[in-house]
């Protein structure tokens, strides 16, 4: 009698034989995935055979022959992954002669194939969250998914960090209802809180793979000391190229695309041996990226400089060294990146970190200590977004009438919505049906109408437009930048909001060169290269990765504990000692601030360690309050670690400025008027279906008809301030761009304000004065800008007002 408790016993002989023929033995976590009933979450490092583990049950079933209909659905965040997986699965299927049809279904799939898949789905469908949402909006959904046995969700740790994951979990809740008994496998890289991730899936048995040997990770020794400020890491280019020369294949990670470009240039300049190295980031064309990926897989490269675009699980080549340029900002991400070195599961990953400046040296040491201690960080997930739920409800209504009571229970089976209140659900349904306005204006024209207790789409023709709006990624409006008037060479794209902030004559950086803004014509930004000039304005585009709360806390603790400074390089230790002599060192529990004068300006530095976004918000709030106190602030700069404000009058007592009530009050007024909030509203309103996504080409034709979402925001604020979308917008801004939660947490956990009046610039403040990205304070506001400009122009033109005809 076979031992049914032994996992291996469940693998069919054909499959075991195929494994043996490949010279492989299944890992125990792969067999555990096979043996564990119900939903499972597999936590395994890169190279642990995660994907195969997810598909084993399907392959095992296929050995006995699959019936007609869709058997297994695979969802991943990347289209490229679905192609990869399709290729990888094709091999065992062909070798074993299995009767299995595998197809992918993404935004790239042609209309004919899509239409056929709705009638005759394959056995295994490889797809993305958006494409699944689309399929679920068809009335055929019950037939397509009725036979479904398995769902495999790849890179679930990455999906869980975005609204795409929320959308996928809502789709999963629907699948569970269409196909009861469905088994779900979540596949994840190492995460700080597997139980939370299992909860995100709606509950699952956690299976942990052997994490493998501890990584070999350290700082890369550099010949030059790191600079005081900046983020480029160019000072270490020669050390990095030497490390590349000594390894087989190196992945060089850097935090932003602009930095990747600059660092690649710096590497190229010292690449005396002409090593084949390449660049890979999301702003490059798809062809360029594919070429690099291909060359890497073929073993033609020695190094690739990359941003997050390589973070997810594509398997290429034999990477044996990972170099991280700049502080990792987040320990979990560092660990996941290290995992990319050495895809051989049993050998340690080798990684080196290069801090970009002095503060980052401390952050890197703190991050290494966290890795050694096995501590990961991560912000606790908030509840699922109500804007995503609104979109989901609208899409389900396209598939068929909605029955609110069972639907509410279905939604609550999705992990992110497990605690959704009936009131919030009703709000969303009301928004989708009527707009949810205090003024009930659309009785005759509701989107959904109730008949016999069910909500129907009033106008079935609307389904097409609703489906066009699928997805939770709202890209900023981009404008192309061209050289010279009329069809000059294209240089790249910038965000519309950034373009709107430019005045003719302003200079900015694009594609590695400095250009002067001339004019905006037909949605094209026309510029003239100005190689000799320093760019006046740093590109300032939204959310930058901020140092995590946990890592910031470790960093602050390390600074405050001189006994532990042995871990720091000499130059950094000396810098800390100097700071303690001239001023004070920040330490946990205290909020350290300095006021000092230099060159006719007063400077106020606050060592908040709250992350870049929160510090920026704090900067805007504090300067606003300083304006009120008559201190005449002129500008500020925010880093992950500190905030520096300059003004005409000194800050003598920071306590009233930092009063939490006052700040919160300021937030209400300031935030509501702020461009950050309006941008946030645009995203929320687009996801929720109030705004139609701007489709390519649609914009130019309908200029008079389309109007800015800011108008809707202002109108809602005036007439309907408690509207669902405004509530969602406020919550989103507090967590994301404004990150006010961290400002509040900082004020709570560090109540003791220490204010020092050093005689001159301090060692900690000096690097801040060199930081790029200064934000000028235009207290007079946009209206006054226009007046000054108008007056100046009239004066220059020698014109008098009043007579045009």
């Amino acid at each position, binding site marked *: 009698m076979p031992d049914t408790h032994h996992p291996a016993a469940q693998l069919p002989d054909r499959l075991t034989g195929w494994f043996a023929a490949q010279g492989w033995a299944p890992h125990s976590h792969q067999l555990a995935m096979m043996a564990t009933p119900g939903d499972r979450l597999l936590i395994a490092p890169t190279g642990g055979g995660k994907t195969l583990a997810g598909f084993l049950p399907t392959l095992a079933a296929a050995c006995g022959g699959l019936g007609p209909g869709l058997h297994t659905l695979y969802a991943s965040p990347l289209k490229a992954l679905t192609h990869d997986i399709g290729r990888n699965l094709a091999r065992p299927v062909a070798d074993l002669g299995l009767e299995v049809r595998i197809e992918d279904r993404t935004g790239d799939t042609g209309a004919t194939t899509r239409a056929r898949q709705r009638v005759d789905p394959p056995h295994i469908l490889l797809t993305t969250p958006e494409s699944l949402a689309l399929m679920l909006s068809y009335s055929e959904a019950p037939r397509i998914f009725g036979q479904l046995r398995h769902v495999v969700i790849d890179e679930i740790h990455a999906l869980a960090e975005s609204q795409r994951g929320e959308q996928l979990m809502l789709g999963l809740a629907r699948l569970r209802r269409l196909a009861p008994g469905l088994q779900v496998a979540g596949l994840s890289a190492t995460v700080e809180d597997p139980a939370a991730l299992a909860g995100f899936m709606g509950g699952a048995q956690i299976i942990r793979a052997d994490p493998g040997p501890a990584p070999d990770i350290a700082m890369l020794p550099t010949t030059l000391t790191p600079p005081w400020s900046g983020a480029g890491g160019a000072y270490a280019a020669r050390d990095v190229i030497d490390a590349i020369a000594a390894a087989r294949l190196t992945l060089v990670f850097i935090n932003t695309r602009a930095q990747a470009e600059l660092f690649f240039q710096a590497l190229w300049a010292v690449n005396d041996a002409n090593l084949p190295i390449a660049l890979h980031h999301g702003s490059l064309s798809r062809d360029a990226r594919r070429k690099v990926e291909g060359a890497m897989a073929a073993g033609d490269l020695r190094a690739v400089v990359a941003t997050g675009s390589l973070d997810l699980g594509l398997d290429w080549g034999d990477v044996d060294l990972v170099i991280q340029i700049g502080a990792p900002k987040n320990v979990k991400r560092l660990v996941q990146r290290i995992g990319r070195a050495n895809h051989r599961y049993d050998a340690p990953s080798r990684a080196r970190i290069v801090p970009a400046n002095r503060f980052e040296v401390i952050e890197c040491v703190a991050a290494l200590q966290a890795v050694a201690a096995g501590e990961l960080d991560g912000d606790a997930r908030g509840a699922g977004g109500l804007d995503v739920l609104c979109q989901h409800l609208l899409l389900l209504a396209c598939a068929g009438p909605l029955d609110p009571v069972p639907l509410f229970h279905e939604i609550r089976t999705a992990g992110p919505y497990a605690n959704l209140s009936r009131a919030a659900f009703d709000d969303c349904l009301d928004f989708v049906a009527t*707009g949810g306005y205090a003024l009930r204006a659309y009785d005759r024209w509701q989107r959904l109408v109730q008949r016999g207790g069910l909500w129907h789409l009033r106008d079935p023709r609307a389904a097409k437009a609703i489906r066009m709006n699928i997805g939770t990624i709202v890209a900023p409006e981009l404008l192309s930048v061209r050289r010279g008037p009329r069809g000059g060479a294209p240089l790249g794209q910038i965000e519309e909001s950034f373009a*709107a902030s430019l*005045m003719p004559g302003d200079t900015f950086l694009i594609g590695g060169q400095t250009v002067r803004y001339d004019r905006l014509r037909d949605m094209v930004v026309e510029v003239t290269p100005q190689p000799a000039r320093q760019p006046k304005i740093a590109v300032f585009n939204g959310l930058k990765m901020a140092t995590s709360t946990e890592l910031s806390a470790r960093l602050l603790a390390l600074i405050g504990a001189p006994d532990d400074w042995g871990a720091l390089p000499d130059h950094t230790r000396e810098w800390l000692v100097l700071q303690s002599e001239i001023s004070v060192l920040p330490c946990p529990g205290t909020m350290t601030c300095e006021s000092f004068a230099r060159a006719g300006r007063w400077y106020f530095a606050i060592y908040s360690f709250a992350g870049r976004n929160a510090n920026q918000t704090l900067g805007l709030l504090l300067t606003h309050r300083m304006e009120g106190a008559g201190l005449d602030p002129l500008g500020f700069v925010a880093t992950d670690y500190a905030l520096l404000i300059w003004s005409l009058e000194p800050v003598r007592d920071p306590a009233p400025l930092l009063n939490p009530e006052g700040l919160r009050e300021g937030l209400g007024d300031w935030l509501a008027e702020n461009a950050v909030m309006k941008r946030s509203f645009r995203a929320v309103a687009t996801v929720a279906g109030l705004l139609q996504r701007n489709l390519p080409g649609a914009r130019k034709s309908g200029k*008079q008809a389309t109007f800015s979402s800011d108008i809707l925001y202002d109108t809602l604020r005036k007439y309907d301030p408690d509207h669902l979308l405004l509530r969602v917008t406020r919550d989103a801004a507090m967590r994301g761009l404004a990150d006010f939660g961290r400002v509040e947490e900082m004020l709570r956990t560090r109540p003791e304000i220490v204010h020092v009046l050093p005689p001159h610039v301090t060692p900690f403040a000096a690097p801040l004065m060199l930081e790029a990205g200064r934000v000028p304070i235009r207290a007079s506001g946009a209206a006054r800008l*226009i007046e000054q400009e108008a007056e100046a122009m009239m004066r220059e033109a020698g014109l008098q007002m009043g007579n045009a*005809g």
Partner: protein
Amino acid sequence: MTDCPLTFANQHFVARASGALFWPAQDALIVADLHLGKSERMARRGGALLPPYDVIETLARLEGELSATGARRLIALGDSFDDDLAAPALMPALLRLAARCDVTWIAGNHDPQAQGLPGRTLPERQIAGIAFRHIAQDNPDISGHYHPKLMFAGQRVAVFLAGAQHLILPAFGTYTGGLDCSDPVLTALVPQGCAILTGRAARMVPFPLPPRRRARPARRALPI
């Protein structure tokens, strides 16, 4: 709010920061492109349910302008309604408007056949040698339709566009976008003239905008 005086076709006007035009000699307020009922029209066609406050907001601003100027006549230069079906639902508000002043509704491309409006409904109207119509045509005329906008000081601002032959008003309606003044249609109508910015204050600037002069080295470069 700061007004901007303006002479067009030998008549004196006042451009208001709101985007309305006041004509003291005729005691008339002129507005263009109210697009009343836009949100309802989108809803009727099964589109998004926009915040339904555009009518309230537009009419409140219009009544505010009538009070501020004391105008006893109102000329709406077409596209007053987002379509011909919009007006009936708004009748109480329109009657209230007609009760306080003499209203002329010029037809626009959105509302070519509006029926039963309180006041006069005309395809176009001539007063003091100036034509009032929806789309600029023969000289001289005052019109709307294009919703002109100008990129200025980093912002996109609704403007009056005035040349020798045409005066084009910005859209007064709340839910309206705009056409950039650099569009060939507008530069053909107003090759040379001025734009009046709306918003907090009405401000006149030359149109087209002159290239902005930077600190010029010329003066100090002169060798003595």
